[in-house]
């Protein structure tokens, strides 16, 4: 089925288009809007974005595949990203990763069987002074301890959404 933005997001798109001298410049922000709605960027979304911004679908596809935050396939409802880069690794990121894998019963890159949580590693998220850290959806959790990670993941698994 063809993809369409919700009314509110469509309004956001119109605001976006006013900010730039070209339509193409809205490509990445629009892809974010679409992903917020659909969860991932499938072919219908690519067609939609290409059509709305007068771009070749191949251009849009090229953009989607370049950036690591665009999901090309369905993912869990919630995204857990644990930073693995050196400054976090110096302060225990490896243990956080292992703890997440154990607690969620999945490996890095996988989604829990109930479709709730996708676990991934991230490269430096600009929180090296408060390492180790992880991002859950749009929120940062810093200065992580074993108990804190446990609590965050429990809350996530039990959440209604």
């Amino acid at each position, binding site marked *: 089925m063809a993809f369409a933005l919700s009314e509110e997001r469509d309004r956001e798109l119109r605001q976006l288009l006013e900010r730039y*001298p070209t339509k193409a410049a809205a490509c*990445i922000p629009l892809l974010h809007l679409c992903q917020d709605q659909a969860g991932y960027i499938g072919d219908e979304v690519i067609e939609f974005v290409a059509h709305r911004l007068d771009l070749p679908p191949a251009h849009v596809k090229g953009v989607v595949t370049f950036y690591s935050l665009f999901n090309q396939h369905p993912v869990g409802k919630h995204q857990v990203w644990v930073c*693995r880069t050196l400054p976090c690794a110096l302060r225990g990121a490896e243990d956080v990763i292992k703890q997440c894998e154990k607690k969620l019963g999945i490996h890095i890159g996988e989604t829990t069987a109930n479709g709730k949580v996708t676990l991934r590693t991230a490269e430096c998220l600009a929180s*090296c*002074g408060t390492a180790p850290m992880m991002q859950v959806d749009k929120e940062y959790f810093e200065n992580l301890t074993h108990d804190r990670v446990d609590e965050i993941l429990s809350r996530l698994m039990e959440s209604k959404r």
Partner: protein
Amino acid sequence: MIRRTDFLTKNYGVPNGWSLSVYEKTGGYEAAKKALAMTREAVVDEAKKANLRGRGGAGFPMGVKWSFMRPHPTKPAYLVINADEGEPGTHKDRTLMELNPHSVVEGCIIGCYGIGAHVAYIYVRDELHLSKARLWGAIDEARAKGYLGKTPFGKDYPVEIYVHTGAGAYICGEETALLNSLEGKRGEPRLKPPFPAQAGAFGCPTTVNNLETIAAVPTIFTIGGEEFSKYSSLHYLNDGGVRLFGINGHVKKPGVHELAVGVTIRELVEDIGGGVLGGRRILGVIPGGSSTPILRADEKVNAPDEKSPLHPWHGKSVLDVPLGVDTMRGIGTMLGTCCVTVLAEGTCPVLAMHNLMQFYRHESCGQCTPCREGGAWLLGTVEKILDGHGTMADLNTLTDVANNIMGNTICAFGEGTAMPALGFIGKFRKDFVAYINGERKRSDARLTIS
């Protein structure tokens, strides 16, 4: 010498410190009023006097960069702010966006006026949702007051500021990759020339400034460019002012602090960072983000020539050299983003290099063969050595591959990969050899210390 200041950080920790009312209580937006009453030329001159070396990593003087902007007969000019903050070990710009976003907005108003632009785009990496929200909040507040829009502070010089978001790609911090990304393309760096000042965003004259660089601009116009510069003990090297210093890794108190330029790494680690975790000794220090080669604690400055800018520190430990653009270059590394990563004794440098090579392998945009293939070779070869399958020939391969990246790529990401690799191999050769000889095993290697 440590000299603490709080031009940018005075409202860190204050309730609603990011709001317009708090910002204005301490003189906020007076600098913009003042600057907009000056001529554009005078604004650029004042900026030059500040000797503010770009805070994004390359250390180019901000005022000089502004002076490259020439009015174009048909094309508009743009100010683009780089808030992609992705260099491993760098965590300073984010604090400004979250805790002092109005300094960014005010800096953008002055910057736009100085370079002849009417629109500024702030490119923020997507993950920083709170930063984006705080910036938008500040923009909305400033617009409601009439500080942005058609006539900022009553002056007929329209200024608009927009926040633009990336989508997870470290390379978009490179300024021309950032411009491509802003234009809705893959974030692939462009061949230079043309430089952004000639053909930048949308093919128009553009200045790209780091977020901290632009946030410091109101301070310059509040206290005066020369006064600003003189805070630094490296003022005489045209490396002026105050800046944010980050400290992370194996220290007792990691964090971000505003200090006058000129502190040493040792002062940062011992006095600001509270010393090394567990009272250990320092193994090495990465001075300003993972692309800057590591320094060993036992390295000494070798500058017998009295004319050398480093001569005053001849024979001293590199950790006692002030953190400056030219001083760090003089000891074979780079100042970079001025956020220091400390590795304590007991950490395995081979494993540390392996961690970073994973990063570079992941983040190469893939346009240039030496970077795309070289990054993979570097990672694969360290992995082989770590796993106990390495030979002395592999150690030479690492050096060869890194040397072949240097100078052979479109953008500085190539050097950013090769230089730290060469740093680890050159300075910790014995550790690599220990794996090759079978004296050390990966299972015993640690990055954390207890």
